[in-house]
């Protein structure tokens, strides 16, 4: 069967969102898209500008992944959560720097950069955002 793994040009294309939560927001209706779009999926508008999601948000719910695809199997068990960022966008991502017992629905979280996977063939290390419990600021 065909090898699963990281294809370098595709990995590079995905960096803005994966590293910085940067995507494209519709100037007509405000809809956020994680990847470059020619047309807004919600209103059909064609004016989209580069925008960045807030790095802080609220944990809506989470689960612990016990078995994963070949690229992620070495990292199991890991936590995956649904997060609503401060600007209201829902995104999914892994949670890090904590045990599942420390998490609760509604808690504040913030994005950080971590290793996501190491490709078996190319040894390429893929980095990307993960969320961690927010450091409380005054």
């Amino acid at each position, binding site marked *: 069967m065909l090898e699963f793994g990281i294809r370098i040009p595709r990995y590079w294309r995905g960096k803005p*969102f994966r590293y910085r939560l940067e995507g494209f927001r519709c100037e007509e209706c405000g809809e956020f898209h994680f990847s470059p779009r020619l047309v807004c999926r919600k209103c059909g508008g064609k004016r989209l500008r580069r925008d960045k999601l807030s790095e802080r948000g609220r944990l809506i719910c989470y689960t612990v992944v*016990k078995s994963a*695809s070949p690229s992620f199997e070495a990292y199991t068990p890991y936590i995956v959560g649904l997060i609503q960022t401060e600007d209201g966008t829902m995104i999914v991502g892994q949670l890090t720097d904590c045990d599942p017992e420390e998490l609760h629905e509604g808690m504040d979280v913030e994005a950080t950069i971590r290793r996501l996977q190491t490709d078996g063939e190319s040894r390429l290390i893929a980095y990307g955002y993960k969320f961690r419990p927010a450091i409380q600021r005054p």
Partner: protein
Amino acid sequence: MKKVLIAGYGLTKVEEHWDRSLENLMAESSLKALEYAGLSRVDAVYVANVYGEVLQEQAVLGSVLAEELGMSGVQAYRIEAGAASGIAAVKMAANAIQSGEANVVLVTGVEKLSDGTAEEHLALTAMEEREEYTGQMGVHQAASAALLYRLYLSRYGARQDGIAQFAVISHENAVGVSHAQYPFKVGLDTVMKSPYLSEPLHRLEATAVADGSAAIILCSEDFAAKLDPPKARLAACSLATDYVTPFDREDPLHFQALARATHSALEMAGVSREQIGFLELHDSFSIVAALSLESSGFFPRGKAGEAALAGKLSLNGELPINTFGGLKARGHPVGATAIYQLAEAYLQLTHQAGKNQLDNAKHAMVQSLAGLGCAAAVCILEEA
């Protein structure tokens, strides 16, 4: 609109067919369907398959199947719409009949997942989501389903055993079904005590690696008159799409694509929900079965589990589901799954369902989803 009829079916057993190839499985179900209908040729061939080019590194499945059947020359296509590929292929086939271009066609679904490992299987399911987003985050379909499950339990305050009961119903109905992958009962306690795949989703609330192929014969009314087997009418076939990632949708707990496809199928067939005698649901995960029943308007939101526990969805209940075991127990060979569902609905409506035969069912609804609802396809079958 011109009538389209189902006039034959052929099934392989769903299991891990280590010794059989993808080609061989689809040839077997197709030949069984052709022989059942008393045919040696058709006007067109449609193959529903999702992972052939990844797992078997084989494309052109239309040409491959035509050759396997000694039918090379015939027009043949491979259709893909994730796990809804089967109904997508049926839709194309029905269009060919209704346009007058074809009188009789073969639709064959096939998948052979056992050529990959269980881990690779998880990677394959991520193909039905946005690979560049959730896939790169290590969020496969079971993880997304687990998040939906969590949201569901907390929003509606629903009991988890109600959702897990969907697995119990499917297994109950698979008992004695010769083509089913897991033809045995599994108790609610066993489901709830099985290990978590991804909490709160248990291992026994999900489907497993499966190989299988199912085929049906579709034909026009004129052509059907020349064929001996009993027929059922394909009264409607409808497909709709939605954003690929469920959490991007306005309400992740509402499969809008399924709501749309259901509405238009009912309208097309000219029937109401009350006339639907039984449902073949897409129970890829227990929670998906519950969300499907609610999204398609058969039960209020948050109430599907109560209906399951109350016995309303069992074979002797008011709205039986998954009468041969559904995806959970008959098995879920992805591209073939919806063709199994249609063949099973055909067996019910032509009174060939054996011990699982329902009385008085005149209409059946078959629902199929790609991924977690990025496409939904609905067929309504009716007694001919």
